């Protein structure tokens, strides 16, 4: 293992109301892949942003190549050889791939930008990385995976000594991840240090050398990957063992009435001929890799996106769903994976969000019945144990888990019998996760039916009664929980790729 190239010591950073980093230490060596792990909000991304000059640290020292440094912006960090591959894609959709790669450091001929040379250089770079992308293609025309590859290629092109991968695999297919790993191994040989932030335990095991774990903005410890188990890491991350056994048998009777039947649903490339049934009182898990078309299926079903064809039956009756209004009227509620964008109105209060979908029940003539609204909001705050100072609190001030509960309250208020949970626990801390699980179980006990889209295998295995697996826009399998195993699901989810 190589020499230490980068040391961060006692890094402290506070935002108004949050102590984001509490004296964190980090050490990166040449030619290694260091996994940086921790639950959401543990401070991994913040730490990396401090390193690359996006945030300014409050205290602590950063030593790079033996010198103490502090970057004022990403540009300085880049010039010094520290490059970050962002979690959110930083693409400029209207520019070409080559233009994106060299943004901020274009080749020039006089004052003219030399686009030809940029294309050539980009081509060389892609050849070197063994990636097949046309440098003159417009960025927004590429698939998400290809865009991610461009990001990595860009990082490599900086002659970086340290590359930080911030959840790089989140949007990639299995084969794309393999490709990326090939690149990473390649880079390792060139003595480049890499920090790899990810939630995917399997990847950590495969690609990294050491694991540094953070929790609640603090440094917990560092392990050698080969010498530790998954449970070791998880224990450090959560401070307690939460690994729960999967559900083995469904409690839902086999002859429970079908509340929702979808037949031959088609909506673009991502939803091709999808059919399934949902029974009363069950949780139907939707598993698959990112980009398998699960969210798209849910959105098409819900009328959020236009669909091309397909029949939907609710309680045995054929219904027409052209827009979310139709879906809501059929008793379907949709809890989006991206709550802030699609679930809640953050600038409004808990009460206002709770009654959003069922305004008509809270009218007193033409006026909103604020009293009734407050009552129902209070009721659900209590029932769902939402942590909020009051129902007139703005939702923006709540934590992710509690925001999720507000969205649930919205659909319960609307009396929706069919709930689609899209990644219900994404961005939610472990404690709140368990609460959401309990809540879901309680809901099905009460006779609601749930479609749960999840990328977390444990979540799928723990919660679902039946599991639908999708891959590249097609349904590739349907399993009862009793016969579902991680390997089977994975196999179905990646069938066509291999």
């Amino acid at each position, binding site marked *: 293992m190589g020499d230490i190239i980068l040391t961060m010591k006692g890094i402290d950073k506070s935002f108004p109301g949050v102590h984001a980093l509490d004296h964190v230490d980090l050490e990166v060596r040449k030619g290694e892949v260091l996994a940086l792990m921790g639950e959401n909000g543990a401070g991994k991304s913040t730490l990396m942003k401090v390193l690359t000059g996006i945030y300014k640290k409050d205290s602590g020292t950063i030593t790079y190549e033996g010198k103490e440094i502090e970057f004022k912006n990403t540009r300085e960090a880049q010039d010094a050889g520290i490059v970050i591959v962002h979690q959110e894609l930083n693409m400029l959709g209207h520019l070409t791939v080559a233009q994106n790669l060299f943004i901020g450091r274009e080749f020039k001929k006089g004052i003219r930008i030399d686009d030809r040379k940029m294309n050539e250089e980009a081509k060389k770079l892609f050849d070197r990385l063994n990636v097949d992308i046309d440098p003159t293609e417009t960025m927004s025309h590429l698939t998400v995976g290809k865009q991610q590859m461009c990001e990595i290629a860009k990082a490599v092109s900086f002659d970086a000594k340290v590359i930080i991968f911030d959840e790089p695999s989140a949007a990639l297919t299995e084969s794309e991840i393999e490709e990326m790993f090939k690149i990473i191994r390649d880079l390792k040989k060139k003595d480049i240090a890499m920090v790899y932030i990810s939630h995917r335990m399997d990847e950590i095991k495969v690609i990294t050398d050491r694991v540094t774990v953070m929790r609640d903005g603090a440094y917990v410890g560092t392990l050698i990957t080969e010498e530790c188990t998954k449970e070791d890491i998880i224990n450090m991350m959560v401070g307690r063992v939460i690994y729960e056994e999967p559900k083995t048998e469904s409690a839902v009777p086999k002859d429970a009435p079908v509340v929702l039947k979808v037949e031959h649903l088609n909506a673009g490339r991502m939803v091709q001929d999808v059919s399934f049934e949902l029974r009363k009182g069950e949780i139907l898990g939707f598993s698959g890799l990112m980009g398998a078309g699960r969210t798209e299926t849910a959105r098409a079903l819900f009328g959020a996106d236009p669909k091309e064809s397909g029949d939907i039956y609710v309680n045995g009756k054929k219904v027409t769903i052209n827009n979310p209004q139709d879906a809501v009227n059929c008793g379907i509620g949709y809890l989006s994976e991206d709550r802030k964008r699609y679930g809640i109105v953050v600038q409004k209060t808990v009460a206002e969000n709770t009654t959003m979908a069922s305004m008509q029940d809270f009218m007193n003539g033409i*006026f909103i019945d604020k009293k009734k609204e407050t009552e129902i909001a209070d009721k659900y705050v209590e029932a769902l144990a939402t942590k909020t100072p009051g129902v007139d609190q703005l939702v923006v001030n709540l934590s992710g888990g509690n925001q999720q509960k507000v969205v649930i309250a919205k659909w319960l208020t609307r009396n929706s019998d069919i709930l689609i949970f899209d990644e219900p626990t994404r961005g939610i801390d472990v404690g709140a996760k368990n609460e959401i699980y309990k809540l879901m179980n309680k809901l099905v006990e009460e006779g609601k039916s749930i479609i749960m889209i999840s990328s977390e295998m444990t979540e799928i295995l723990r919660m679902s009664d039946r599991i639908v697996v999708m891959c590249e826009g097609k349904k590739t399998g349907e399993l009862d929980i009793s016969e579902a195993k991680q390997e089977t699901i994975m196999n179905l989810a990646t069938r066509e790729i291999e």
Partner: protein
Amino acid sequence: MKVEKIKQNAFVKKVGFNRIVLIFVLILMYLAFGALTGGSFFGVSRITNTLNYVYFLGFLSLGVTFVIATGGIDFSIGPVMYCCALVSGYSLITYGVPMTASLIMSVLIGVVFGVFNGYLVAYWKVPPFIVSMASMNIAKGIAAVFTKTQSVSWPQSSTADGWYRNFVSMNGIPVGLIIFLAVSVICAVVLNKTKWGRYILCLGSNEEAVRLSGVNVKKWKMLAYIICGTLVGIASIFFVAAYTTVQPGYGDQYNNEAIAGCVMGGTSMVGGLASISGTVIGVIIISLLQQGILALGFTKEYQYIITGLIVIAAVYADVSARRRKN
């Protein structure tokens, strides 16, 4: 949770605080102008005079508040107001349409423009700024074509049809003020207490989330523009009641003043946050400024410059306050 609680209180305080600052500014301006003009600014007749001339601006501001609340913009309001007054006035004078019908027609034309703007913005997703530009041109064009590029003078107070001028003031009673305040209260109620207002504000804040809640966002968005159009139609009545004459080809200058009043009052340009009482105070500040600068003997140019600078200051305050909060 403790942190959140403090935030909450601060926020509540801030809302109140803004309003207090505005009123404070208002009083201060009034006193300053009073002092600078040697007291002539305090006369009752001065106040009523001033008021008579700004009701229409108030209605425009109220209208545009709804549109800005959805995160949109409408700067066709001035020319549309002129169009309402010109087309109905021309019908009144030239075609002998009865006064009552003309007044109703004014409002209806406003509504039609509201529907037009709203439909394009909500159903066709044309950027509001483009729609404004287009309907501004169309309103000016229609008005000029209809009136053959002649100005239209509504009847004088002394004539039989002159009763419509009582809308601004009747025998010294500020009828206009009463109507304006009443409409403001209605607007405030609509915005804060009804489903309409709730949806308009919510969709201004996060349209997609509201849509996925099964709400027909297009309808409510269009409604905001229709409310705006209606108020613009009403504004046109108060305009002619104060000034009688309207001429085609103009009206742009009132856009700025109306939007300025609205923004001064704390309605956020990014949508979702609007306050009718703020708009009312804001529009009074703008008109006071107008009158004050006039009373100080400055020409109109200075009013443009000063209003521009003040609105920049107000928006900057809003932007930096929001940035602090995030």
